[in-house]
């Protein structure tokens, strides 16, 4: 295993060098970045190792129905975003000269409190979520190199911390693009090896279709399951494809666009990269049952077992690099937006020089410390942070893009608070996979399988409508001031 150490050291040094030499003057704005870099960075931020290893393992259990998630990610999570959301976001950001998504909403709706609120939840949730991403990458490295997981973790946190600190948003985009490229190579290599082994895609699909149904794939491996497992797939598609619209680290990626024409160039590049990475990984993992047999109980072991079975030693290392790249690209995006949120949205600082360094160091240390400590509350926050943030941001964000800020600051702030509270309450009291562990309660039957994204967005939207200045007959203080 030592013989591959230079490969990993070279990778680490390259990441730091890319970040260092591609930095811009403003840590929170990207400056001029080519569309290829933007597209690859979007994909690399979007796809973490959870999506590759974790969901890849789920493909072994659920079969080809998981392709619904990949298709949703490509069309709803990428095409729709570049077609309808990216350029209007950039126009508002440029008009308001905002540095973070929370500041964008705050300035647009003239509500300072929404910036503080979204800043606080972004900082806390994304630092903790980032810690889980670091931990996953460290475990992966400990599996392929003779180092302990904790030693690998400290090195990874230091490398990502340095690249965020030195590179700012521009450096992060360039390192992500490089990592996105590695992900395409790694997954492409695995897919080709698997198709060669099983005699091509048609033979593989035929063999998979012939397998008997299981408890999870209760309609076979080529059909959506009935009941809760099928509902789970549909909600996973919605959470990962629609929830993505309102993730601050991905909204920030649109700040690099220079013109509407760039969105038309970035969209096909990102869609192709995502089709290869996610579509290829899920297709290969679904077919992995043909090679690995039916006995695997821990889905997280599917991808490593598949890679060990199909690829030579160098290929295994390259695939491990791709998975670590998936983790680190997401971690650097999370650390960057968490640092920006803490400094700009919570402390209201300009974030140049020492103030930027201080917030990055604080967020990096916190993320590293959380990664070293395991607890059930950290695990729950990691599993829920994506949805909590989406529910707090999506309604005011989409409302801004659709109708401008005419609903008013009160509607925006309260819908954000309502979305966050609604989804938290559903996680604690109704959503069976989490609520039974937390409170001991759950909603009855299939209602308990409804993902908290849906009730969270409904509550947020209802609150937004109730307090919208556009609908209300009683003008709020701001409207009255405007009228005067």
């Amino acid at each position, binding site marked *: 295993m030592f013989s591959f150490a230079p490969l990993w050291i070279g990778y680490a040094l390259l990441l730091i060098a890319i970040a260092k030499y591609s930095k811009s003057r403003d840590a929170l704005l990207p400056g001029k970045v080519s569309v290829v870099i933007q597209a690859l960075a979007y994909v690399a931020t979007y796809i973490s190792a959870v999506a590759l290893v974790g969901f890849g393992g789920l493909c072994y259990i659920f079969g080809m129905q998981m392709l619904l998630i990949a298709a949703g990610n490509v*069309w709803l999570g990428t095409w729709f975003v570049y077609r309808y959301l990216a350029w209007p976001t950039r126009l508002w950001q440029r008009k308001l000269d905002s540095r973070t998504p929370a500041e964008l909403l705050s300035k647009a709706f003239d509500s300072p409190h929404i910036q503080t609120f979204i800043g606080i939840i972004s900082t806390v949730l994304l630092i903790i979520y980032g810690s889980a991403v670091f931990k996953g990458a460290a475990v992966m490295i400990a599996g392929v190199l003779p180092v302990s997981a904790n030693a690998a973790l400290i090195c990874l946190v230091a490398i990502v911390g340095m690249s965020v600190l030195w590179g700012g948003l521009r450096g992060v985009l360039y390192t992500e693009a490089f990592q996105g490229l590695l992900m395409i190579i790694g997954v492409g290599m695995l897919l080709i090896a698997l198709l060669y082994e099983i005699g091509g895609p048609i033979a593989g699909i035929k063999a998979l279709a012939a397998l008997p149904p299981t408890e999870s794939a209760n309609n076979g491996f080529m059909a959506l399951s009935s009941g809760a497992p099928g509902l789970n797939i549909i909600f996973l598609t919605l959470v990962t494809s629609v929830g993505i619209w309102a993730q601050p680290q991905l909204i920030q990626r649109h700040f690099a666009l220079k013109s509407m024409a760039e969105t038309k160039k970035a969209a096909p590049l990102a869609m*192709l990269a995502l089709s290869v990475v996610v579509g290829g990984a899920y297709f290969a993992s679904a077919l992995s049952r043909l090679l690995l047999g039916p006995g695997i109980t821990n889905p997280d072991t599917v991808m490593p077992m598949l890679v060990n079975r199909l690829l030579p030693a160098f290929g295994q290392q390259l695939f491990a690099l791709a998975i670590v790249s998936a983790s680190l690209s997401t971690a650097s995006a999370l650390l960057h937006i968490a640092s920006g949120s803490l400094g700009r949205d919570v402390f209201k600082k300009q974030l140049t020089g020492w103030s930027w360094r201080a917030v990055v160091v604080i967020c990096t240390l916190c993320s590293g410390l959380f990664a070293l400590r395991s607890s059930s509350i950290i695990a729950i926050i990691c599993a829920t942070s994506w949805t909590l943030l989406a529910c707090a941001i999506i309604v005011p964000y989409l409302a801004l893009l659709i109708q401008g800020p005419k609903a008013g600051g009160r509607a925006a702030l309260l819908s954000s608070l309502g979305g966050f509270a609604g989804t938290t309450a559903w996680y604690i009291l109704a959503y069976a996979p989490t609520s039974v562990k937390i409170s001991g309660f759950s909603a009855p039957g299939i209602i308990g399988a409804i993902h908290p994204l849906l009730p969270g967005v409904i509550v947020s939207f209802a609150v937004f409508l109730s307090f919208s200045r556009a609908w209300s007959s009683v003008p709020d203080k701001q409207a009255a001031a405007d009228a005067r």
Partner: protein
Amino acid sequence: MFESADMWVLFSGAALLWSTGWSVIKIVRLAK
């Protein structure tokens, strides 16, 4: 083979193939 595939899986597979083909055509056109 595809008889056992339901609408969801067929639709997802077609959507992925379409996105791949469409993206390649778009990229080639943009590169020209």
